């Protein structure tokens, strides 16, 4: 259960990006946050992930107030808009990253990486360079990387933009399937209403 209460973010001292935002994501629920770009959707994700400190408000996860926790202790995963795969590591090492941070033994890590790559439809690509991936493949790897440490909550920032129509729809369906299969609570930011409907259980429209 993710609970956001009264979050306020002001940038440059005067522009209010988020003005007392409340939002809930139930366990296992996939929520789409849909609205025009520039509405502060990504900013909210960054607050929840701990990458940005809000001027006011609280974020609770599993009943615990995590507002003051640094991002690496929150157990909240995030799929970034441009994937942000580490180019100096291959696919397997990217997916493995979060597991290494948890000090999991090597054999377990390898098994988990294989499992995740299988889940996102890219079995056996561990040793490929991330720079050799196509746009769709990179997004799948980014999803696998975020899911590998099994975060109870996953944030997705426009995870499907920049793909052609057919690929986009296929990936949207895969994303919905993977999130359900792993039972991950998810909050996805998108500007695309059709995409939101395709992936999410519930859509929160943001006009701002």
């Amino acid at each position, binding site marked *: 259960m993710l609970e956001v209460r009264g979050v306020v973010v002001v940038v440059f001292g005067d522009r209010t990006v988020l003005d007392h935002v409340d939002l809930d994501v139930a366990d296992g629920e996939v929520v789409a946050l849909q609205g025009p770009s520039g509405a502060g959707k990504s900013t909210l994700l960054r607050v929840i992930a701990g*990458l940005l400190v809000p001027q006011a408000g609280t974020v609770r996860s599993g009943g615990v107030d995590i507002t003051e926790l*640094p*991002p690496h202790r929150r157990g909240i995963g995030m799929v970034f808009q441009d994937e942000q795969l580490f180019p100096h590591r291959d696919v397997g090492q990217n997916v493995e990253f979060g597991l290494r941070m948890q000090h999991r033994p090597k054999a377990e890590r390898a098994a988990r990486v294989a499992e995740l790559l299988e889940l996102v439809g890219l079995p056996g690509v561990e040793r490929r360079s991330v720079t050799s991936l196509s746009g769709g493949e990179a997004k799948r790897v980014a999803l696998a990387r975020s899911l590998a440490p099994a975060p109870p909550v996953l944030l997705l920032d426009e995870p499907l933009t920049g793909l052609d129509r057919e690929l986009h729809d296929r990936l949207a369906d895969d994303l919905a399937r993977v999130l359900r299969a792993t039972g991950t609570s998810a909050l996805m930011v998108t500007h695309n209403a059709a995409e939101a409907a395709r992936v999410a259980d519930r859509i929160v429209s943001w006009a701002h």
Partner: protein
Amino acid sequence: MDRHRPALIDAPPRWLRPALLVVPVAFLALFYAWPVGTLLAQVADRSAVSKVLGREALRQVVWFTCWQAVVSTVATLVVGLGPAYLLARWGFPGRRLLVAVVTVPFLLPTVVVGAAFSALLPDAMLGTATAVVIAHVFFNVAVVVRLVGTVWAQLPADLVHAARTLGASPWQATREVTLPLLRPSIMAAAMITFLFTFTSFGVVQILGGPAHATIEVEIARRATQLGDVGGAAVLSVLQLLILAVLLVVAGRTRRSSELPLRSVERARPRTMRTRLGVTAAVAATTVLMAAPLVALVTSSLRPGGRWSLTAWRTLGNDRAVRPGAALGVDPLASIATSLRFAVVATVISVTVGALAALAISGARRRGRLLDVGVMLPLGTSAVTIGFGMLITFDQAPVDWRGAWWLVPLGHSLVAVPFVVRAVLPVLRARPDAWLDAAATLGASPLRRWWEIDVRLVRRPLVTGAGFAAAISLGEFGATTFLTRTGNETLPIAIGRLLGRAGDIPRAQASALSVLLAAVTVTVLVAVDAMGDPAGDRPGSR
């Protein structure tokens, strides 16, 4: 708590930043700032300054330094624009090989260039200003080919075509369209060539003879031969000031091309005329650039005009040449010394350079100060660095005159800026979002820095290590001051051998130069193949 922290996710962790600064700052303060301070203190006595500056001989040195640099620069541009045009605009088989042939001189240690031209030019020309200028041109043609050629290759051919359809003759189109667009790059090439030739030491020392001295050569002569430390200090400070002014000017004329980056368009020679023209140009360029190196190899094999391997065979044992008359140089030992120093200098420069780069990129805006500090040795002539160290570390508790490590340390002062410049762009280009991603994957601040920034610098550090090794192998200016008997490096041994009479020493100098050139070029080519070519010339000082 402070809720206005701008960059929440940052690397390295705040508490680590001061620790990263310690080594680079201490290194620069001790081995750069202190010696430069000592030099400045030496000239605090005004009467000594006016005495030195008032001398006619000194005015001649400054005058020669300036005019040979101007003539060398103009000649380099005139000679270099041909190959630049050829390699930028024409595609032909073997083009890449020719690029390599033109680039190699740029990578050679100055003593090797000096030795090559003393092998190539007739004896009557040695010791003349002409010899110096010719060697400078050979050395710096690559600057023009690289800087001007890159822009030239991206000029759309249709720009000239447009001018032609508007009634311009080929020459008018060149003058009205091509040259103005190339001007920023030509100015940049001129500026760099001028800086290199103005501070030229090895080439002038070897080819200029007793009658021609640049400020660099004169500093060395006064300090090491005449024992005129005060005069040498005045000249060093003068050189520092002139260089500072030149670098500021160079910074102002930064190449700003208004051209959008385009794909390269190269024409294939198809008509009879263009084929002949390209072939002739390729042949001329090859001969010009290869002749000195061919002469170098030949002269190592032809002591006294007869083919023999004597010079090579006697490298390890100079007694065999003239019984009882040792050369005072052990060529074979100098190879071992050079390799040993190169390893030490590389370790020092890589350590200091890596820490400096990580500290600079971590400190963001405040890092600029250290950035400037790290680059200062680059704007200081190697001779000044060596001389400053020599007169600073000569009394207890820092009497390090006999310490062998002072030599590789001097080399690493010259090399650190190159290491930093190889590493820093990689760190600066690293998106902050990677840190965010690592954070959401559970990486602590220290871990984020270690896993991302520290990992990222490994590859460019290999490049930096190659630069440092090449610089150390070829370094001549600073080494001249810091070297001690028994610890001669290859360039020092070559310089000594060239200064001796007789056929065998000269052939030996050539043989050692061939070795030094081969090792240096191999290191740099290996590095180039491994990483990105960071552009600047490392082996020149």
